[in-house]
């Protein structure tokens, strides 16, 4: 299912990576941020919303990176270039990511920023909407968000253009070590 997901997600303009461990994922994410211009200045921050991925990591060490912030706010997110969050489900047949985003910070980091880095447990890929809908519940999740590729429009002359109001890039990082349902 990972390969199907990857093909569909890449087909709609997402960038997809997969790592075995959280360490390896971090070794990808942190240099990526630096390479793309992370800095302690408006327009260059990275905001990281509360994620199970962070459990057991040395946050203090991460905070040493200039510009990487965990105190997500509207103000900070609107000045951030990067938003990092963990999504709960990946849907193979459409290349979509799904998460309960009832907490506003989850939406701020994934909608106001230019580049959204989405972490996800490789074990949480489902085949399609039917198995997905058996796992999501509007009674307990007030804002269920589906994200499929970057923000797009074709409103001017039907020309596909990426990055209108949401992120221009969606970087999906699968981490096997995060476990998930099929582990």
């Amino acid at each position, binding site marked *: 299912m990972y390969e199907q997901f990857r093909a569909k997600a890449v087909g709609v303009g997402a960038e997809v990576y997969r790592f075995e461990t959280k360490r390896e994922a971090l070794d990808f994410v942190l240099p990526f941020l630096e390479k793309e211009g992370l800095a302690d200045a408006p327009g260059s921050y990275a905001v990281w919303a509360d994620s199970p991925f962070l459990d057991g990591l040395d946050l203090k060490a991460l905070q040493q990176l200039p510009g990487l912030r965990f105190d997500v706010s509207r103000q900070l997110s609107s000045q951030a270039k990067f938003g990092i969050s963990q999504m709960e489900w990946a849907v193979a047949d459409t290349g979509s990511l799904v998460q309960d985003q009832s907490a506003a910070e989850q939406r*701020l980091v994934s909608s106001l920023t230019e580049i959204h880095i989405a972490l996800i447990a490789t074990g949480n890929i489902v085949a399609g909407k039917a198995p997905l809908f058996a796992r999501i519940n509007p009674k307990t999740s007030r*804002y269920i968000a*589906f994200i499929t590729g970057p923000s797009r429009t074709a409103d001017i002359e*039907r020309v596909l253009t990426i990055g*209108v109001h949401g992120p221009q890039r969606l970087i999906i990082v699968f981490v096997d070590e995060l476990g998930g349902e099929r582990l």
Partner: protein
Amino acid sequence: MKKEFKASITRAVNDANLTGALGKFSEAYKVNRAKAYEGIDFEALRSRIAEIKSGAACDLDAVAETFKKNAEALGAKVYRTRDPQEVKDYILQVAKDNGVKTVVKSKSMATEEIHLNRHLMENGISVAETDLGEWIIQLAGQTPSHMVMPAIHMTKEEVSDLFSKEVDERLSTDIPRLVKVARNELRPRFLAADMGISGANIAVAETGSIVLVTNEGNARLVTTLPRIHIALVGVEKLVEKFDAVVPILDALPRSATAQLLTSYVSIISGPTPNDDGTLKDLHIILMDNRRTEMARDPKFKQALQCIRCGSCLNVCPIFRLVGGHVFGGIYTGGIGTILTAWFDELQKSEDIQGLCIQCGNCTQVCPGKLDIPEMILEIRRRLVLEKGQSLVQKAIFGVVNNRKLFHGMLRAASVAGRPFTSGKFIRHLPLFLSDLTEGRSLPAIAAEPFRDSFRKIEQPKSREKAAFYAGCLIDFAYPETGVALVKLLNQAGIEVTFPEAQTCCGAPALYNGAYDVAAQNAVENIRVLLQEDVKYVVSACPTCTVALAHEFGRTLETLGRTEWLPKAKELAEKSVDLATLVKQLVDEGRLSFKEGAQLGKITYHDSCHLKRTLKVSEQPRELLQKAGYQVTEMFECDMCCGMGGSYSMKLPEISAPILQSKLRNIKETGAPVVAMDCPGCVMQIRGGFDQDGSGVRVKHTAELLADQLKG
């Protein structure tokens, strides 16, 4: 039709930007849509959606009440109203109570429907549309021309001009750059807005949820950043169960934009915390605005199955020529005609309902299984009931309803030698016209109608008989098609009868809303065609076959003449189109063609009624191949030729360019012959090639097959 309306059509079809953009889009759409639906059983999917939506429409009041109860239990405020004015008052009151100065909106046709922006702005509130297309038309002071792509009629140059004015800087026409301008201009407004207004694509009663389907990401910001969120939802968006979301999400993006899924889908169930820790003030307005009335009308209830994907516009041969603004209302195209007739008033649809050529393309792609052409016919019928027929139409149908007079006049036209040039009635007779319209010649009335030729044909006697229903065009303009039909059936050992008292099939009257005339035609034909004991009633005109096999019963039922229904059914069961019958005879080994014939390339034009109502498309192709032709498909082989009966006379400015595309597509195959099974299409396309001078031969399939019979 009103003069201003005609003028707006002429302007639209001559607007090269518009027709170029729409034409390109519509051609690409068909291919992309098919790709998006690969591996999906579309018929099963749309049956499921129709069932879900129709189920909710049956009991709108109860479903709406369940939604209200469940959404309120979660903390949302739900307001139900029938009246658009009350919607506007409610929203304004919420704004005033909360000191709202600025509003950001994501796309909502329901707010367009009630002209909400104007109301808020007149009351001193600043409103920014944030969907790129909606923002463009807001800056231009226009209404959306398409429900999914509101600004599809505009060029990048026009957009660049609008944006340049807005940001007070001369911008280039580079589209990514223009999109960037929109992002930068609208971002501060999102962050500062006091209120967000959205629509909803689905509202789930069971869970009190609303579902938003978007691509740009603006709906996520509208529902997240401002402290107040108001969702305006037409009650047709209601479904009962949460699992109903799945099939609608499977279909909506595929049908709307040929995507597997849009970039964003949000399922919101009750208020969520704002980023400052307070709880969102969430209002959901369920607006009726005549939808319940519509749901109670047996002919229009199906309109509530619409999921607002716009695919009916994307495949419409008329929409791709004229665009949306000709329709004059908020909702455009075929579905827009129906919604305008209800949400505004029936009279408002008087002109625009005439734009539908009844080709049925939209019925093939509609994910809600709406029969838009049927509903438009019903609008026509009701308009005629309300206003009566025009004098000209009355005169025409007076003649058509009197077979002897009608046929006598057709004969007179032939005797006169200069058909249609004199006599006011003749020139307006349905399917026959006096003037040579630009780009198409019209056939002369045959010197000898089929009914006269028929008597001279010597037929082998047989116990197996077929009654031939010729229809006006074959009888009086193309008798050779009828002769070919007799030859084909005789060869298979079937004797053909020709009941002389047969009259017009009633299609011209029906498609003009004159149901009483159509019903009278139906009754006369039923009586005549059931007189003899025949196995088949065969026709070589698909429109006539549809009348015999489908419309007679439906028309009589609509008018309550139920005593005729059993006979109509008996006739329907015997009725068959020629291609289907001949294919059956060939398959049974009763007919065969000369062996080894190499007749070269041919292309085939699918007639609307044959392909989409009678579902016949492979049979004629297989027969032509068996007869020795090599069938080469043209681009858009099943796109209407623009004839549409009297349509080509009422709206020649639309019919002519449709014909031109058809001629071009035929010529591009390089085939010297084009075959078709409808004498109306023969008249249109042959007339077109006669003017065009390219020498492509236009033939009814029956004639081509009869020439190749063995023995």
